[in-house]
């Protein structure tokens, strides 16, 4: 059991699970509700750093720090959502992208709090012992499955139908008396807080937190995975992450023995392949590999 997965494999699998969760949460925000969130890394990174700071700088108990970190992300998402959710999708894109850039900047510059590029200290695993990393992996697995199950159930619930209606034609939904601003704000806050939760749990995965973790690459990877897999499906994020991040960050980097002088080319190759995949999918299957819309309700 101990040697079933090497330390690095556990780390990579944990990372992959986090990406699956993020992509599924993005499915909820974008695929279901039509909210354009290009600040995924902002919510994730805020959760990660808030948790690390509360734990290390303020010495709060582990789960208190975790809950508080998620609450902070929820609050920030609420305020940001309040401002941008009723704007058009371009404005949402720019605002969320800018938000993520601000978070990355603050983490770099506010050294008194984050220690800047030097890096915050080491965030411990939630449980100690020899299997601590495996426990964390298990927690991430359970939570990620939870998010997918939630997405699946929500898609077939009245609130999911409301979100689809808002995405399709918001004015018409309002015409039917739907408080669309409220629905979007609640949902955006909840799902962004979810991103924050997975950010907080990424802190012990990464252990040593530095600002370069918060680059826009995280957001782009999540978006590409979701678009490739199928933005309209609860399993779209999972499929997309398996085909992109899993193949590169897990299979290739863990098991493929590449000559050392190739090592620098792999990340560049990876980005190129991501790009090519995205273009091909958008050209031939614009709704992603899983395809277009769901079956309508056919009887009561």
């Amino acid at each position: 059991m101990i040697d079933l997965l090497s330390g690095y494999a556990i780390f990579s699998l944990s990372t992959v699970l986090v990406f699956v969760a993020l992509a599924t949460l993005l499915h909820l925000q974008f695929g279901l509700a039509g909210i354009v969130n290009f600040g995924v890394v902002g919510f994730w990174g805020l959760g990660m750093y808030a948790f690390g700071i509360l734990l290390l700088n303020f010495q709060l108990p582990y789960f208190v720090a975790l809950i508080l970190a998620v609450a902070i992300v929820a609050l920030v998402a609420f305020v940001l959502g309040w401002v941008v959710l009723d704007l058009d999708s371009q404005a949402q894109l720019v605002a969320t992208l800018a938000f993520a850039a601000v978070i990355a900047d603050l983490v770099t510059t506010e050294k008194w709090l984050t220690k800047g590029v030097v890096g915050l200290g080491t965030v411990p695993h939630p449980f100690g012992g020899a299997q601590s990393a495996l426990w964390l992996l298990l927690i991430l697995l359970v939570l990620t499955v939870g998010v997918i199950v939630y997405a699946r159930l929500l898609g077939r619930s009245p609130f999911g139908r409301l979100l689809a209606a808002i995405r399709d034609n918001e004015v018409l939904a309002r015409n039917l008396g739907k408080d669309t601003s409220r629905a979007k704000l609640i949902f955006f806050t909840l799902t962004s807080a979810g991103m924050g939760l997975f950010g907080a749990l990424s802190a012990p995965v990464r252990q040593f937190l530095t600002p370069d973790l918060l680059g826009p690459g995280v957001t782009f990877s999540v978006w590409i995975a979701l678009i490739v897999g199928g933005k309209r499906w609860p399993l779209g994020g999972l499929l997309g992450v398996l085909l992109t991040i899993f193949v590169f960050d897990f299979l290739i980097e863990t098991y493929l023995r590449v000559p050392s002088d190739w090592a620098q080319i792999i990340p560049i190759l990876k980005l190129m392949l991501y790009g090519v995949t995205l273009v091909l999918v958008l050209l031939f299957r614009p709704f992603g590999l899983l395809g277009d819309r769901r079956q309508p309700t056919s009887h009561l």
Partner: protein
Amino acid sequence: MSNNQITLKGVKKSYGGRVVSDIADLALGRHGVEGLIGPNGAGKTTLMSLITGKISADAGEILFFENGNRHDISGKKLDAVARLGLVRTNQRIQDFESLGILDSMLLSVVQPAQETVLGLFAETALRQQAHPAINRYLEAFRFSDPGGYALSAGEKKLLDIIRCLLLKPKFLLMDEPTVGLPQDQTDKVMEVVREAARDDGMSVVIIEHDLDLIWNVCEYIHFMADGRIMAQGTPDEVRTSTMVREKYMGEGDA
């Protein structure tokens, strides 16, 4: 007869300096089913959008009275106005692209308490509760694939009207409801609307260019041109008004 009313005072709207709506004093809903007629570009659709809050007026006061309650709806948001029981059907086709016919209807029927982030299992109860109302409309109106999507323009128009009726509004504004519908479906729509007006006290204002329908269905008519209400009265009074003839029916479509 219904006791719901909309009153407008000094309501103005202009686009780029051109006044498209200038309503000095207007009361809608005093006479059960009313008509609103006038030439293309008269400002009829704009008037409805002003009332429901889809667009906001530059000036003026709009009040909504229902069952003895008085609501100032000037500047109120579209969805807030709809929740008071004042809704409109659309002239131009409006649809939820990814919702099937039944989904569209369920969206209308659902109560806010069932429509929550954690209400993951509310669907079964909703369907049971919505069953009678939805079935009634499915029996009354023909859809080529009732278990699928609204396909033709006519079906989408019909669905738009049914969605509004399922809300059981107190006041229904209908913007050219019959365009694109076959005659028998038009008759059916009018039958259902008149029934709701009679039995549930729903007030109705219908915009139409189909004047036969207006003369047949409406008890009172408002005539509009150039953003203003120019004449009001019973169908007979309006039909025989020389001004209405000159400004509208003289154009050849009567």
